[in-house]
């Protein structure tokens, strides 16, 4: 191919996934905000009978955000980045095009059934793996299709060397495939006995073993969806947006392989002071602390990419989103290891500090990066200028305020709970009943709910901005080289 003869990348599938990212973002975050308010004001549980209780909605919120919003985001960016760093258009392969579309539509089908079944209370109760076995099989199918897409596109590539982002996409694919398969092993009871519901199953593992496998999965789904999949995005979009090369190739290498090598151990920190053997708890704890190195390696590498170009932070809200995302990544990957230290864990485990920790990672790091990715892609996919820079600015500050309210209130709530649970009087008797500890943190639940609401409002502003860009933005003649074009 002649260099002047630019490839026409085909963004059909990327566009589909951009829409589903926004759709599930709204659904997942709206449910999240609702359940946050339910904890502060329990009467909200009765909006829809049994289908509106906190407990039914909670798995919908987590699955909606993780597997709806974040995975859609990862796939939208894959169908965009994949072609560009491999220098091959999806339009060149009918097969990969069909795979891509099938990937999307099967995924939509899966999500619709997942929402219905979770509403109905069909659940295996394993966190982030609540779906029953027929849906698990559908998940595997969707996942395999994505794998075919990755390796298919790699198979017909023109660029010989795999760009860093691709390492991370491949790792996301392999990691989740392994974790999901093993954690969801179950025996459908109908096929053994011919009685009862055909969709019902029991876990292959019992008790402590089940817990081990579940948290090996549960924590590392975080690793390979929330972390690895998002690093794939920032390693592509930040250099593109800022026009700066990645700071250090060696640091990229170190942090990638370091992350792969260490992360899988960290699941053990969910089981500190549980009934799993002590050495496992200790390993989980120690490796979680070691994990600071590769995590900060990536984050520092990303931040130093802006070396000498920090004024861009003032000029471009998009850069701001990405830099704040990396900062929250550093924050969250320092907080995690602190929570894994046994004595801290003894206090913090089972408290609201944990959702607080999860949310500074997900809202700050994952949410901001995913939105930044969509902002970057929109002018290139739809050939339109971004609609409003000032709206982006406003969104940025509203959401940042939301996150700060969220984690600050949950820290205080969590530490308060932990301290009250263990508080004893001079004779060694417990000072508080359990309900005392609930009453004490209601104000923080309000603050958290307001924080969540601000973030949701920001997400609506984001949706509006993207929508207006697509329908009313100025047409772009040719693709912008770096720094997204924006109307004032």
């Amino acid at each position, binding site marked *: 191919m002649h260099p002047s003869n630019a490839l026409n990348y085909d963004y059909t599938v990327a566009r589909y996934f951009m829409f589903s990212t926004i759709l599930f973002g709204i659904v997942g975050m709206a449910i999240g905000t609702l359940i946050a308010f339910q904890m502060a004001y329990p009467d909200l549980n009765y909006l829809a009978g049994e289908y509106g209780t906190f407990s039914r909605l909670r798995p919908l919120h987590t699955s909606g955000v993780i597997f709806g919003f974040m995975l859609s985001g990862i796939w939208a960016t894959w169908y965009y980045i994949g072609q560009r760093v491999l220098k091959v258009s999806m339009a060149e392969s009918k097969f990969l095009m069909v795979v891509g579309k099938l990937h999307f539509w099967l995924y939509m089908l899966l999500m619709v059934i997942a929402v219905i079944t979770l509403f109905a209370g069909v659940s295996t109760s394993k966190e982030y793996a609540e779906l029953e076995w027929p849906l698990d099989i559908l998940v595997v199918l969707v996942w395999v299709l994505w794998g075919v897409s990755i390796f298919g596109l790699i198979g017909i590539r023109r660029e010989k060397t795999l760009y860093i982002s691709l390492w991370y996409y491949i790792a996301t694919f392999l990691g989740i495939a392994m974790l999901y398969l093993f954690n969801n092993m179950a025996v459908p009871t*109908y096929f053994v006995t011919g*009685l*009862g519901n055909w969709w019902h199953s029991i876990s292959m593992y019992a*008790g402590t*073993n089940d817990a*081990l496998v*579940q948290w090996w999965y549960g924590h590392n789904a975080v690793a390979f969806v929330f972390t690895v999949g998002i690093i794939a995005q920032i390693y592509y979009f930040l250099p593109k947006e800022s026009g700066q090369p990645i700071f250090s190739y060696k640091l990229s290498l170190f942090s990638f392989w370091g992350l792969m090598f260490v992360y899988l151990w960290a699941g053990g920190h969910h089981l500190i*002071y549980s009934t799993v053997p002590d050495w496992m708890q200790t390993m989980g704890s120690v490796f979680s602390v070691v994990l600071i190195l590769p995590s900060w390696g990536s984050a520092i590498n990303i931040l130093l990419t802006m070396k000498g170009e920090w004024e861009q932070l003032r000029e471009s809200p998009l850069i701001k989103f990405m830099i704040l995302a990396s900062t929250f990544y550093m924050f969250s990957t320092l907080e995690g290891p602190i929570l894994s230290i046994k004595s801290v864990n003894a206090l913090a485990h089972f408290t609201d500090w944990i959702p607080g920790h999860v949310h500074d990672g997900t809202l700050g790091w994952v949410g901001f990066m995913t939105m930044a990715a969509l902002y970057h892609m929109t002018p290139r996919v739809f050939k339109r200028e971004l609609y409003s820079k000032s709206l982006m600015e406003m969104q940025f500050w509203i959401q940042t305020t939301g996150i700060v309210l969220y984690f600050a209130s949950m820290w205080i709530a969590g530490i308060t709970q932990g301290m009250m649970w263990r508080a004893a009087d001079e004779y060694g008797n417990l000072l508080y009943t359990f309900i005392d500890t609930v009453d004490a943190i209601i104000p923080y639940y309000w603050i958290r709910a307001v924080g969540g609401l601000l973030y949701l409002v920001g997400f609506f502003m984001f949706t509006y901005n993207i929508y207006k860009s697509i329908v009313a933005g100025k047409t772009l003649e040719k693709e912008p080289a770096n720094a997204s074009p924006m109307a004032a």
Partner: protein
Amino acid sequence: MFSFLEKNPFFFAVAVFVVIAYAGVIEVLPDFANNARPLDSKKPYSVLQLAGRQVYINESCNACHSQLIRPFKSETDRYGMYSVSGEFAYDRPFLWGSKRTGPDLARVGDYRTADWHENHMFEPTSVVPTSIMPAYKHMFKKTADIETAYASALTSKKVFNVPYDKEGQTKLGTYEEAQAEVKAEAAAIVEQMKDPEVKAAFERGEIKEIVALIAYLNSLK
């Protein structure tokens, strides 16, 4: 070495897989057999208890209530004896939970009556005035799925060698025998309950979800 991998996607993928898979092998596998051993005093769940456990799972009670007492004085004072691995040998899946919005339930069978649970599920604030738990009134209307619970128990007996029908263990028998067993067990609980509709339904031969759930909660000791 690394630039070689970056040009060979196949070997790259293999390398990534090896590097991520080893931790599972070392961390998860070694104590598998050990962890699966039940306590001598532990018996498999009865069919009614399993049906209740399924209600507990369907309503995601584990999102707010843990079933794992950690070995601290504050926890053993509050909830009872700390948890040991052998207690959970028949738990498929485990229900430790990860967050305590409500108290731990691992020993709730020791200190709550059927009556208390009934009120708590129907109107939580009637027994704990500032409770933020949702009411689960529909458990008083919906009929427990005994057949699926039996299928669960039979599957764990057939596939995982759970010692149902063994000397001194929980009796399972045929589906008809199990149904009679369930009925007798439910009768004892309905006896202690106040709700007239649940009682009337039981007379008609229907076992409501709340009855099964209470059977399960009472088994947590």
